[in-house]
């Protein structure tokens, strides 16, 4: 497969600001997504990844606007489809660091199928789900992580459906790294992202990221989040026990398993086209 090889670069350190583009975010002042952006820059700097070796792939939503605000390669695709875009890129170009930026609507509602299968395939991607339990960009509808009684125009009195527990679903579906952070703690997220990017399988980082405009009550998360407690486990059953008892507001790495057999690697050419074509001749 024709592809770029990691160029020999003179080693130099990157600072967080080297990853910031000059495009001005459209986010509301105070939006949690700013914290995620800051954390990502810090994590990339800590890993000292050349910006051109990193691709940030997203769907559609306030959260999904992140790529253009970075100085990395970016792809702002369509709603819900960031994971397959990223999977194709990673399989074709395994040497790149591929990061997915998504929201609770993008990743878990319209993108739910790709979420399930990205977890199952366990390809080496880092997927950040900026979870504000609302559709910010379309101005305040419930998402899969919204409580059943949250009142909105489209679901007066609440949609009546139980919220999805993305981390438990990811575990059941086969993701090999599962963590949660809070956007009010960029250093904490940066730490999670460093670990997630280093992890050689599919790494899910849910970030509680308040939508100050449509869910102002989420500002209270600052007081409510708490550390998850014990060290990450490598035992899925133990991780399940923790996640089924979890209150949704604990942060940390819940699970770090052995990545599944599949790995994106470059295959050597074993046969040329002429040989392949010869099989058609009678």
């Amino acid at each position, binding site marked *: *497969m*024709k*592809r*770029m090889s*990691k*160029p020999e670069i003179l080693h130099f350190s990157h600072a967080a600001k080297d990853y910031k583009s000059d*495009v001005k975010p459209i986010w509301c002042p105070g939006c949690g997504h700013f914290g995620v952006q800051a954390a990502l820059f810090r994590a990339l700097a800590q890993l000292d990844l*050349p*910006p*051109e*070796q990193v*691709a940030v*792939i997203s769907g559609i939503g306030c959260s999904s606007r992140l*790529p*253009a605000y970075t*100085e*990395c*390669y*970016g*792809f*702002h*695709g*369509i709603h819900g*489809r960031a*994971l*397959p*875009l*990223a*999977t*194709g*890129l*990673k*399989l*074709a*170009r395994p*040497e*790149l660091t591929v990061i997915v930026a998504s929201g609770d609507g993008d990743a878990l509602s319209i993108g739910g*199928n*790709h979420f*399930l*299968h990205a977890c199952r395939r366990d390809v080496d991607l880092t997927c950040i789900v900026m979870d504000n339990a609302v559709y910010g960009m379309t101005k305040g509808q419930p998402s899969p992580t919204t409580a059943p009684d949250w009142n909105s125009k489209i679901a007066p009195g609440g949609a009546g459906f139980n919220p999805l527990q993305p981390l438990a679903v990811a575990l059941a579906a086969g993701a090999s790294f599962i963590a949660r952070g809070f956007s009010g703690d960029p250093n904490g997220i940066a730490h999670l992202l460093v670990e997630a990017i280093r992890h050689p399988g599919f790494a899910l980082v849910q970030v509680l990221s308040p939508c100050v405009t449509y869910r102002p009550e989420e500002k209270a998360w600052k007081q409510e989040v708490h550390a998850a407690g014990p060290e990450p486990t490598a035992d899925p059953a133990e991780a399940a026990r923790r996640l089924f008892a979890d209150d949704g507001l604990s942060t940390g790495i819940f699970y770090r398993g052995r990545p599944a057999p599949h790995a994106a690697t*470059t*295959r*050597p*050419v*074993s*046969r*040329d*086209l*002429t040989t*392949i*074509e010869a099989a*058609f*001749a*009678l």
Partner: protein
Amino acid sequence: MSAPFSSTDAIAIAIMGSGGAGAITAGGLLLEAAGRVGWQGLMTRSVGPQIRGGEALAMVRLATSPVSAHGDRFHILLALDWENAERFVDEVPLDADSLIISDPAAGDPPATLRASGARLLPLPLDRLAESVPEGRANIVALGVLARLLALPLESLETVVVRALARKGVNAAYLRQTLAVGHDAAAGCNGFQRPLPPVSGDSGRWLLTGNEAAALGALRGGVRFAAVYPITPATDLAEWLAPRLEQVGGHLIQAEDEIAALNMALGASYGGVPALTSTSGPGLALMTETLGLAVAAEIPVVVVNVMRGGPSTGIPTKSEQSDLNIALYGLHGDAPHLVLAPTSVSDCLFTTQWAVQLAETLQCPAIVLSDQFLGQTQVACEPPPAAKPTASTRVIASVGGERYHRYALTPSGVSPMAIPGVPGRQYTADGLEHNPHGTPSSRAADHQAQLDKRRDKLLRYDYGAAWAEVEGEGEIAVLTWGSAAGPVREAAARARAQGLAVKAIALRLLAPAQPARLATLLSGVRRVLVVEQSHSQQFLGYLRAHYALPADILILNQPGPLPIRPAGVLAQLSQWK
């Protein structure tokens, strides 16, 4: 590139039988054996609704020159039994000149078939088979056919033994079974339909259109594919999967068609030419993502192997009814490429060209194949050897100055940066954007990018390959895709009858080429449009984008029955 019309010496043989009788196997072996002696031909299979093992029909047509369509009727119908024969009668037109071969023990042919007036040649196929250990009636039948067609028995022996011996059947018995059939037909003078031997270079390829398309993709440089299985496109991916690995690429089965196309787009964004294959329902699921490829200017190829529609429709049968969705199925103003192979073997060239155009124009290309083209197996002249062509994508190289991914250039194509290249980072976007790539909702940016995306397709010179043209005259037949086969043949017959006819099959459907067609139609006063769709989709497309003479006839029919040369000829004859 162009597959000339089928010669009039063509012989059509149908082999029919119930589940397990081996009709399809026999048909395939017949075609292969014929190819080995230099004949050309094709075989299409038709099966019942059972997932596996139901009744089946193999339709074979052989000639000493290229064959790209089925004919008007079958010369020989060989029935291994008559169970469920009713299902196939529509597909096997016979006339008084036809021959029905069947085992008297299996009973009489159905009345519908007898009504054709075809002659009957009763042969005790089963009893003959039983005379040889492990003998099977379908192999006896091949022996019979070898005799009637004057097909050298050795050729059949070679293919039959190679195919069945590895399944554990004794080779000597196989030869014996063939011989029994061959001998049994020895006395059948008057029933023979010999094809003359072919001399000179008789190297033949044996392949289906789906295989040809997959090979075309490899030749064009495709090194990544993501697909979701769907009839009748699955076998394209199944052929491609191991070969892509061999050339250092990769095929992945996605969770659905939306994921498949997005994966392909991701790979292509990463600089690796990519493809997906599907059929109608899958294409419908891909149109949103195709729009993304248009707006973000990412090359990608979708091979859509059409089947009967609408909805799940008739998944195993051919129809040309996805033309509209391929041309117009994207929301917004979304110019893209649509191409269609004009014969089974042309699936190779057209798909390769589609990859090259997509790469050059940074745009999605849809290849409209169909079940007939995709799953019909042909014995044909080897396509011209071609070195795998490198991707022709214009790439942005390392550089310091500010990079504008969507810069406005004279050609409309702007250099594309590939992740990994320093200093060229940008964000590909489906939101409208300015030349740099930053989202913009300004009228001027929208207009400029809409112009750019249209103009890059319009300014490109597609050359003569855009259409396949045969003949000259005041009468033109306009067609596309698999309908080109019967049209070519009908036009040749019309010419033989003294009617000057120009046959035009469009290979490039979008962008439309009104100036080129106008040139082709200068001097043409009458046009016959031929297509296999119920709602005259091709006619609508022609009317929308081309200037046509006032005198137009349309021959359109839905699947599953093929358009036959005689049907086309009948329309042309009105203008005699």
